């Protein structure tokens, strides 16, 4: 079986963040992310980063795992940092503020959805009354992304076994283009078959699942603490300035 990169690889651990009610967790950490993004001051933003790292520490997700995934984000933030620090209206401090806030926000994703299985995240979204169509799209993306990646891998294996090698030329581009086109066609066929399977089991546009979520005082308390921190970070900025 092929290994797929999974954000919920460490969902099986046990920590105060893992056993937090998924709905409360989503709302609280999302509030914290928004709170940090709104901070106008570099020093306070650094406190935000520290809080984000503390949450990761509590969640016991290994930092190496986060670092590995952060590489892509850093590749995106780094050029932005350079450009903003060189512009007259920006400067180093402004660039750092943006970078720190972006890093904190991305780091917080890990304690938020890396501490529960992704199917639990989906159900939490459903229970939080996120529009059903959106939830269904996320759900099917998650279910079929693995099916499609193996399909792409098989197609590439078949190309490679017949002598194809990726180079920087038009031929490689056109071959890859055809492969992507083929994938679209196959996906369309599959979606039709999946829809048939859904309809034949009584699908009428809405997905219903059973969950055993239970909201306890501790869940609410944890959420209240994080939301209070999010508010406090911004109130402090107001009083300082």
């Amino acid at each position, binding site marked *: 079986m092929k290994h797929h990169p999974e954000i919920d690889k460490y969902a099986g651990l046990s920590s105060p963040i893992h056993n937090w009610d998924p709905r409360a967790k989503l709302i609280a950490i999302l509030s914290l992310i928004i709170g940090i993004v709104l901070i106008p001051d570099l020093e306070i933003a650094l406190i935000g980063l520290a809080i984000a790292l503390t949450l990761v520490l509590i969640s016991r997700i290994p930092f190496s795992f986060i670092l590995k995934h952060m590489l892509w984000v850093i590749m995106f933030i780094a050029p932005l940092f350079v450009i903003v620090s060189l512009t007259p209206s920006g400067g180093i401090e402004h660039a750092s503020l943006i970078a720190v806030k972006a890093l904190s926000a991305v780091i917080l994703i890990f304690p938020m959805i890396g501490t529960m299985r992704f*199917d639990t995240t989906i159900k939490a979204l459903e229970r939080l009354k996120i529009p059903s169509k959106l939830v269904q799209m996320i759900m099917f993306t998650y279910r*079929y992304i693995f099916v499609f990646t193996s399909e792409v891998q098989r197609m590439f294996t078949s190309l490679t076994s017949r002598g194809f090698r990726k180079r920087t030329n038009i031929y490689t581009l056109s071959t890859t283009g055809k492969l992507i086109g083929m994938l679209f066609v196959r996906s369309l066929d599959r979606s039709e078959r999946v829809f048939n399977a859904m309809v034949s089991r*009584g699908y009428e546009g809405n997905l219903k699942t059973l969950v055993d979520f239970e909201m306890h005082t501790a869940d609410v308390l944890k959420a209240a603490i994080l939301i209070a921190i999010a508010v406090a970070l911004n109130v402090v900025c107001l009083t300082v300035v």
Partner: protein
Amino acid sequence: MMEMVISIANLSYIYHDGTPALKGVSLDISRGESVGVIGPNGAGKTTLLLHLNGILMSKNGIVKILGIEARKENIKGIRRDVGLVFQDPDDQLFMPTVFDDVAFGPINMGCAEEEVRERVAQALEWVGMEGCEQRLPQHLSVGEKRRIAIATILSMSPQILVIDEPTANLDPRAKWELTVLLRGMSMTKIVASHDLEMIAALCKRTIILDDGKIVADDATRNIMSNTPLLERHGLAPASGIIEPQYQGPSPNR
């Protein structure tokens, strides 16, 4: 006289692009029967199965399920009575976990939560997959996916079980385990396949579908022993093919 659970009269179906897929199919199946539908690729097997619970509805011909004609108005009830297991388990299993998938049908039927949980547990036990509720479909083997796919239908307790190519892509062990499993189920079964071994072990009656028409409908024993008939419809090798022959380019350079 036996009760007819499926009765199809003069059913024809033409695809959007004008290709005729079924040409005047008539078929009666009585309660408790186990019927194999065999035929070459493109014979119309899947198209026929899709008519049995109203995924496809043709204006030409009549499909009656449990004595009621399949129409838009009563499609909900028909889909409850006829459980359709699709060929590719990745199409059949579309929910994030095994539990959600097996529970999908019962929830849509309007069962209460307690009953849904009971039905899921029972269905998984029938297919020998108890305790797999929280597993993810992408982590299951093909054989396991097939069993779960059947469980997703059994949880709706249909009166008629329709299965498309249940043994495709299975190794012999998984294939025979699945055959035994299906044989143990008492409801009316319709199995489409070109796996003649499995059909012979599972079905007393067999229908050959070729080019959209039913060309034979008889006891499986008679069909399987009629080699010229099977050969004519591409279901048995022409005589002489099986013996090894070394006529092509030599394998030794």
